[in-house]
């Protein structure tokens, strides 16, 4: 019962740990009339304490590392991490840069990867839908 309620209203927190902004604007696009993920119960939250899912974009820069850990710790369990875009999945074009750690899985346990540069809104919605199935 709780699982049903949970998957029908996944609230997301978006954090950009060093990306170019391409995936971020596609995530913001989800909230807008054409894609409108609120009909799936997804709301973008401001505080980690209110979120269920951490949507990560961008490669993890060394400067972002500690903050990301802290944000992840602040999200109450159960929580999921969905990585949006190639940079978050593997470092993308920035692989090998000394100030970049790499993909998000270098730091946090990732539940879902959405590749793309940037990932299309349809792909992100598909990922959220699959996450909802997995939670049920």
């Amino acid at each position: 019962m709780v699982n049903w309620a949970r998957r029908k209203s996944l609230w997301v927190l978006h954090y950009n740990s060093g990306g170019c902004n391409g995936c971020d604007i596609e995530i913001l696009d989800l909230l807008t009339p054409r894609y409108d993920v609120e009909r799936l119960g997804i709301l973008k939250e401001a505080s980690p304490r209110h979120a269920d899912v951490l949507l990560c974009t961008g490669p993890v820069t060394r400067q972002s590392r500690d903050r990301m850990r802290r944000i992840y710790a602040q999200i109450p369990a159960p929580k999921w991490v969905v990585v949006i875009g190639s940079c978050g999945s593997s470092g993308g074009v920035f692989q090998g840069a000394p100030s970049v750690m790499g993909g998000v899985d270098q730091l946090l346990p990732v539940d879902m990867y959405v590749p793309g540069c940037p990932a299309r809104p349809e792909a992100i919605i598909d990922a959220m839908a699959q996450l909802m199935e997995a939670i049920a």
Partner: protein
Amino acid sequence: MTHSLETILEALQATFPALSLDTRAMLTDETVISVPGDVLTEVVGELIESFDFYHLTTITGLDTGEGLVLLYHFWNIHGLTLYVALPYTEARVPTLTELIPGVAMYEREIHEMLGVDFTGLETSAPFLLPDDWDDTLPLRKQAVESEDEV
């Protein structure tokens, strides 16, 4: 009022007769003047006061393999770049923040990436590099080459 570049170059040569301000062209629509570091502030002051050349687009710092070079890219319809050559050790020029407050970020970045000292600039805090960065200067040639070897 825009002065032609020739007027500016003549006037600068007249104001600083002891120095040879070598000029050359750079692609695209850019004139380069070599300026010794010790008269940089005066030359920039002159450009701003007399010719309204106040817009400094940015400062490029680079490592040629033989030394460091600072390129001050000014723009007023035409591009004018001041070329300042510096040695690897004791690479130092005065800061231009009194004349052009907007220059602070460009100088801080060059200080961080190439190790050039800008006398009078506040550089205690890191700018772009992460807090846990060691002391390597990322844009010096040795730094890039050692990356390739690893």
